């Protein structure tokens, strides 16, 4: 009654609902599809690789629609940036997939892909973590000095450099309150799309930092705007995978049930925190995904013989989803406690919004 069969495997339904919920919370909060977490998790549940990838793509598309609707209500989407970026993203994904096919044809595939994933994610993690810690320190200092602090604090000067590039057409993003050359947004879309296509992921965890540190939006707007991109890229992926027969729609149904609740909660949770909190969770997500990819790289390089490594990889894959979901849930709980004047850990007040 609580199990169903997919490709000859009996899968507990509650695990699918739980996966949908946890990834929904994380995706709604940091603006990612979560493919790098869900596909390995579905393989752990016994799905064949092709079915895991297709089912995940379908679930991501549905979840991103739910999150985007909520973020739109919260005013976290800049449509000018989102629509300017869509074309570049699609072109980039196509180029990335072709690059992937090319590397496979010349005999480089799994190892190169994993090594590239590790390098990109590690670099993004280090930059995001360093910048966010500086912002956290600035928030703490401003708070102690009694200054009024807004919802976003950034110390990176990179966006100013990119906003000064004078190549026409220059667009005015009203919601993000910035003026920038449209080419910068398109090129960000192409570049992040290439990485996404090449690494075989949706690209949210690359696009969100790019929107924050290159285009110069706030973390909240980056999350909402990126989810719109994921609807387009994820929807296209879902359509293609469905046509190939790689989707188990019953599994998608149960995951979407969990994701509906999770994505609503994750999106709403952003209204309780300041920008650096979102970037912290994003950087944690990046380092966990990096460690997961590094473990798979070691597993491949050792010829797939280390059984203990496979066990750790499984526990880590599931653990990272639970960890991120728990971190977001407890952060919201701390925010509510802080708003009610109750005691919270010292690192919390600068990161949460006071009523």
């Amino acid at each position, binding site marked *: 009654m609580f199990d169903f069969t997919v490709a000859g495997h009996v*899968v507990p339904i509650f*695990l699918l609902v739980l996966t949908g919920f946890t990834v929904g919370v994380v995706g709604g909060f940091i603006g990612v599809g979560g493919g790098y977490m869900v596909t390995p998790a579905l393989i*752990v549940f016994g799905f064949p690789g092709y079915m895991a990838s297709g089912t995940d793509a379908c679930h991501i598309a549905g979840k991103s629609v739910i999150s985007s609707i909520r973020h739109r209500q919260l005013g976290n989407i800049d449509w000018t940036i989102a629509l300017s970026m869509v074309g570049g993203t699609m072109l980039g994904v196509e180029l990335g997939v072709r690059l992937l096919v090319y590397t496979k044809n010349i005999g480089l595939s799994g190892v190169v892909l994993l090594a590239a994933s590790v390098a990109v994610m590690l670099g993004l993690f280090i930059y995001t973590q360093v910048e966010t810690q500086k912002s956290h320190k600035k928030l703490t200092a401003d708070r102690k000095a009694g200054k009024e602090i807004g919802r976003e604090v950034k110390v990176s000067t990179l966006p100013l450099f990119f906003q000064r590039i004078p190549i026409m057409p220059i667009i005015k993003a009203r919601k993000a309150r910035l003026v920038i050359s449209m080419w910068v947004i398109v090129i960000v879309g192409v570049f992040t799309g290439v990485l996404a296509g090449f690494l075989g992921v949706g690209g949210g965890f690359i696009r969100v930092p790019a929107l924050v540190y290159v285009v110069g939006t706030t973390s909240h707007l980056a999350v909402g705007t990126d989810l719109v991109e994921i609807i387009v890229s994820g929807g296209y992926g879902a359509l293609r995978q469905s046509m190939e027969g790689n989707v188990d729609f019953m599994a998608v149904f149960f995951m979407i049930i969990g994701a509906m609740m999770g994505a609503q909660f994750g999106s709403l949770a952003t209204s309780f925190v300041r920008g650096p909190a979102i970037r912290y969770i994003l950087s944690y997500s990046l380092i966990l995904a990096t460690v997961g990819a590094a473990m798979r790289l070691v597993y491949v390089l050792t010829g797939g013989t280390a059984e203990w490594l496979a066990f750790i990889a499984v526990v880590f894959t*599931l*653990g*990272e989803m639970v960890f991120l979901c*728990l971190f977001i849930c407890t952060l919201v709980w701390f925010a509510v406690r802080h708003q009610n004047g109750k005691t919270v*850990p010292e*690192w919390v007040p600068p990161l949460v919004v006071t009523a």
Partner: protein
Amino acid sequence: MKWFINNMFGYWILLLVISCGLSAICYELFLKQLMK
């Protein structure tokens, strides 16, 4: 224990240990047979 709550890095470690522990239990109870 206080350090794990009051320090952000400590809290990070605490939650990661809890999460991986829960996942290991879940793996032993439900997933081990599925993966064979």
